[in-house]
């Protein structure tokens, strides 16, 4: 199939359609709105369900209900709207339902702004909703990857009865790139042995996240944890660039990882042996791979569009065995390749001891600059 020039939000939407999306429920919010707008005509055209909900609260609970029937369902939003969905996300996790949610992140906290950010890392990867649960979180860095991850997200969700979040940001949602679309599947309505679609010919079923009896609740918690171990063992995804002979590496996901690649190329041109480690699955995080990598490095630079949310995970994973530095931009500002290049120079030429916190050093430097 030939490549087409597509906007990120539209590409994600069409990839979901081609994956057999049966029903979409959403609410407009910049910078995700084109996804909803596109589906508002595309889904009815195919005889599938599209509904603009009264709020993200409504949307996530519509997805919750529709997922109970065995239908392939999705919603999408951006940071403040995703915050509002947290209630439903926790219930979906507690009921063990396959659901795909796209979060096109923007600046925050609060209303923030509509420019790209990555500050939902903690609320998505480490929860946000109440209770112990682990969504599968996939972070694309370009439009082809966004298409491929979205297309595969539904199978993944159904395989593990799990929530899958496509964690993108405003720049990916808004940018246009040539990409290839996968083949079209019909709308998918499954009848797995847990779904509630009417009890004809079988006993009634109940789908609920309530376990009033504490031992029963704990049993469910253990089941979710064991399933997560299985997901961790099987579903890790990451990309490596120029790491074969590297002494140093940048770690970045999504758009910041993509921008960091330009900086890595520039540093390589100057003779610095540096590569890029880009986690694609933020949950499960490529922990083993990053740890193994770190053992043969002299230093790491973490680049994010937030104040160092993934940084904490990188510090844990690398066990503070090597120097780690951090560079972040916030408020909807993208880190520029030259800025990252300057941070690489600093990492290589003025190494700091592994003690102290990289965020403190970043804040000190950032304070001087501003």
């Amino acid at each position, binding site marked *: 199939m030939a490549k087409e020039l597509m906007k990120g939000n539209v590409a994600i939407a069409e990839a979901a359609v081609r994956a057999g999306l*049966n*029903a979409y*429920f959403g609410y407009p919010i910049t910078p995700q709105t084109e996804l909803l707008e596109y589906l508002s005509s595309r889904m009815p055209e195919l005889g599938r*369900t599209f*509904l603009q*909900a*009264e*709020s993200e*609260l*409504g*949307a996530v*609970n*519509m*997805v*919750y*209900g*529709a*997922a*109970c*029937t065995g*239908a392939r*369902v999705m919603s999408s939003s951006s940071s403040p709207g995703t915050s509002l969905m947290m*209630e*439903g996300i926790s*219930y979906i996790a507690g*009921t063990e339902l396959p659901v795909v949610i796209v979060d096109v992140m923007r600046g925050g906290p609060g209303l923030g702004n509509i420019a790209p950010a990555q500050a939902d890392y903690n609320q998505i990867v480490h929860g946000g909703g109440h209770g112990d649960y682990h969504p599968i979180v996939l972070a694309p860095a370009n439009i082809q990857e966004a298409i491929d991850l979205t297309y595969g997200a539904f199978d993944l969700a159904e395989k593990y009865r799990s929530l899958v979040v496509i964690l993108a940001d405003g720049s990916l949602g808004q940018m246009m790139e040539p990409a290839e679309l996968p083949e079209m599947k019909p709308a998918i*309505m499954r009848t797995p042995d847990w779904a*509630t*679609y*009417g*009890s*004809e*010919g079988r006993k*009634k*079923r*109940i*789908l*609920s*996240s*309530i376990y009033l009896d504490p031992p029963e609740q704990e049993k469910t918690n253990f089941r979710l944890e064991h399933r997560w171990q299985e997901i961790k063992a099987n579903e890790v995804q990451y990309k490596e660039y120029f790491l074969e002979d590297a002494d140093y590496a940048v770690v970045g996901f999504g758009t910041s990882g993509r921008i960091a690649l330009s900086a890595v190329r520039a540093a390589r041109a100057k003779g610095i042996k540096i590569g890029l480690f880009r986690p694609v699955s933020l949950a499960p995080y490529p922990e083993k791979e990053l740890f193994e990598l770190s053992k043969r490095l002299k230093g790491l630079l973490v680049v994010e569009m937030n104040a160092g949310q993934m940084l904490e995970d990188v510090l844990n994973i690398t066990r503070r065995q090597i120097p780690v530095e951090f560079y972040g931009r916030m408020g909807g500002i993208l880190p520029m390749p030259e800025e990252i290049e300057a941070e690489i120079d600093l990492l290589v030429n003025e190494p700091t001891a592994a003690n102290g916190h990289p965020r403190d050093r970043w804040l000190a430097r950032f304070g001087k600059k501003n």
Partner: protein
Amino acid sequence: MENVTMEEQLVYDRPESMASVQTHYCPGCTHGVAHRLVAEVIDEMGIKDNMIGVASVGCSVFAYNYFDFDFVQAPHGRAPAMATGVKRVLPHRFVMTYQGDGDLASIGMGEIVAAAARGENITVIFLNNANYGMTGGQMAPTTLPGQKTSSSPSGRDIEVAGFPIRTAEMLATLDGAGYVVRRSLHDPKNIRMAKKSVRLAFETQKHGLGFSLVELLSTCPTNWGLTPIQALKWVEDAMIPYYPIGDYKVNPALKELKI
């Protein structure tokens, strides 16, 4: 030659759509009557295997255990949104939410208004017992002016807490509503009327006439501090004057139906 003998006939038995379990409701609570009416109507319409119920949060949180058909459990107030999701992907199934007044008229007011306005083809059984039963009888949006509850110990002060919400009247103003009525469960005559309304609500859904809701005035003897019999009397004397029994929206096509 004709022989006339006396033969015993079954007049009433427990509906099949009710599960064979004892409910957790307090003695005399009319939630059980509402459950029974819903189950009777579902039996009569023969739609048990085509049903998906949506339970809410509050005393009716365990409704899914008491009906013998598929059920899902919604977050507090979100049952109409969840029911919308089910109904939109399974338009030929019957979808019902069963919600109390705290769930529907307080935390879930946004979801119920939006579902009614969309003309969502679902049936809502709405129990109004003028307080939050499950958490121990706090003030609800339906608590009457002056009514004492555990969170309005001197009686609901309308200067502070504002006024009760007449849900049926309010939702009936929406064009998407096909059938919106209020009934009461305090005596045999009203229970019979309520059952007919539950039937009409499901008929509304069956004929694709839009959103249907039956508000049922219900007792909460435990939290009201009354005996079951006194509680029924309180519905009649205190609640009905504020919440009149009535048909607030009836799609004309329903009047033509022969049931």
